């Protein structure tokens, strides 16, 4: 069974951390050469942030509350969405697009001939360190939003938030890995990848405001609700423990499924035969 795989349990985590650290160092060395990226990134982050804030201000100039969320609470949602977007673009997206690219070029073969778990290796090789700017700016917005909520953040809420955020990141990783694994059959998965960016924008608002079909889609199909709304619920003291449990269960199921799917894909992978 996939979950009993040593790469996922026990010593596997230590190894995963070791490899991540190694590639993080290489990634940082790589990106330090392109300082202009840093400037561009700050500029992009600033625009994202300003647009987000302007839209929020616009909405709250007409109403005091949106589906039970006050303005500072929605600031938290926006902060978490920016933060999670930063995590995705720092780690998840670059690695997964690299897998797709390497499947096309046939260079994934090199990763597969290394004495390491292929999924692990494929998941940690790229780090776009400048995207951390978004993580920081998201955290600042979140902090600012929290500071304006009167009830404040309890220790339990903070812990629930951290856990929910982790589950959310895991689910987004799984989603991307499924897309990337799809490249084993359909070489051009870029469209699906590009679609993600658009869909992720729905995370700016709590998923409760969307009609049922969309809510279900961005919860279970593309797990944006778990990645943004659920952590935001935790941060704003409205998370029910059942939701967190559901998130945990869904994360485990997704992780097991993607592990199986990746291996299934790998078995079918034939490489671009030279």
């Amino acid at each position: 069974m996939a979950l009993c795989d040593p790469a996922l349990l026990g010593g596997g985590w230590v190894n995963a951390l070791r490899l991540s650290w190694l590639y993080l160092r290489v990634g940082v060395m790589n990106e330090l050469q392109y300082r202009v990226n840093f400037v561009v990134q700050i500029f992009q982050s600033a625009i994202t942030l300003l647009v987000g804030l302007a839209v929020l201000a616009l909405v709250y100039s007409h109403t005091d509350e949106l589906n039970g969320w006050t303005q500072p609470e929605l600031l938290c949602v926006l902060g978490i969405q920016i933060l999670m977007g930063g995590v995705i673009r720092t780690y998840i997206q670059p690695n997964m697009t690299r897998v797709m690219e390497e499947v096309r070029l046939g260079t994934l073969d090199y990763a597969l001939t290394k004495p390491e778990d292929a999924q692990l290796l494929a998941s940690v090789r790229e780090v776009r360190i400048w995207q951390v700017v978004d993580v920081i700016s998201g955290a600042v917005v979140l902090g600012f939003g929290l500071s304006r909520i009167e009830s404040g953040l309890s220790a339990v809420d903070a812990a629930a938030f951290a856990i929910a955020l982790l589950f959310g990141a895991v689910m987004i990783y799984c989603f991307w890995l499924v897309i990337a694994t799809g490249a084993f059959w359909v070489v051009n998965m870029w469209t699906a990848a590009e679609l993600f960016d658009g869909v992720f924008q729905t995370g700016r608002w709590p998923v409760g405001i969307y009609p049922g079909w969309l809510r279900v889609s961005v919860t279970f199909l593309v797990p944006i609700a778990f990645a943004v709304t659920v952590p935001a619920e935790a941060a704003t003291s409205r998370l029910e423990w059942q939701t967190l449990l559901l998130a945990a269960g869904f994360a485990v199921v997704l992780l097991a499924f993607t592990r199986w799917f990746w291996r299934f894909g790998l078995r079918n992978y034939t490489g671009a035969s030279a």
Partner: protein
Amino acid sequence: MEHAVHISGLEKIFMVPEREAGLVAATKSLVRRQSREVRAVDGISFDIAPGEVVGFLGPNGAGKTTTLKMLSGLLYPTGGEARILGHAPSKREKAFLRRITLVMGNRNQLQWDLPALDSYELNRAIYRIPRADFTPMRDDLIELLDVGDLVRKPVRQLSLGERMKVEIVGALLHRPQVLFLDEPTIGLDVTMQKRIRSFVATYNERHGATVLLTSHYMADVQALCKRVVVIHHGRILFDGPLTGLADQFAAYKTIGVALADGHVDLDRYGEVLHRDGDWVTLRVPKAETSQVTARLLSEQSVLDLRIEDTPIEDVIELVFAQARSE
């Protein structure tokens, strides 16, 4: 002694989607997919002893790369068995992957923007090579390939040949016992090819490594491999010493001759392969070589004459031509 590489009845069948050209056929294929079986590797068997260097030859699409990929655990065989140093490659065991390496001539695995030295460190960590083994091995390889200056430059600034050399260093840091080299000299200039050739020979000698090499450059094969395995349409045509290949398949020799009068018709002596100014190259059956030479010398005003074995490239061509006509 146990074989380093043991292959028996190895098979790989691909299902390839297929359709006629044109819009109608394309639309039809949406509904009903036609596919065809391609037997890329069709039941091949051979063994390689530890420390042996074997040339793996065949035209494009013969099944060489597919075989190498099965042997390095990248492709699951459809049938048959492969064992490398006692491991089944398709299981991709870490103990197995640590003992082999795969070098593909036109592909790059080093970090593009960083000096190769940084990528070597990464490989050290991935292969868990103890520092005490790593440093001398790295320095040794760097010296052998003469890349001392190159490993400090970002890989993107290196030429194709330089990149190949630093790639090879990276691929051998973990001291693999079995090397799969797929066209390692492709696209390189002659000097660079020679360098890599002599390096492979030295590595083989020093570490007793087993090497399976594919190359389009017969010079590589001649310099390195006493034994060749020739594959065509997924089947083995020949497995034996390189010299035996010429004996078995080349029933001809070539006679190069320079005549005072370059316009004489030489068809009655043998098959004229080409004319280059006054220099004419003839192909004659091996058994008739001396007789034809004698006739040429007595009947024509010969300025220069040279008898040669069929070049190995031509032998290979003959082998494939023979296989096609069968």
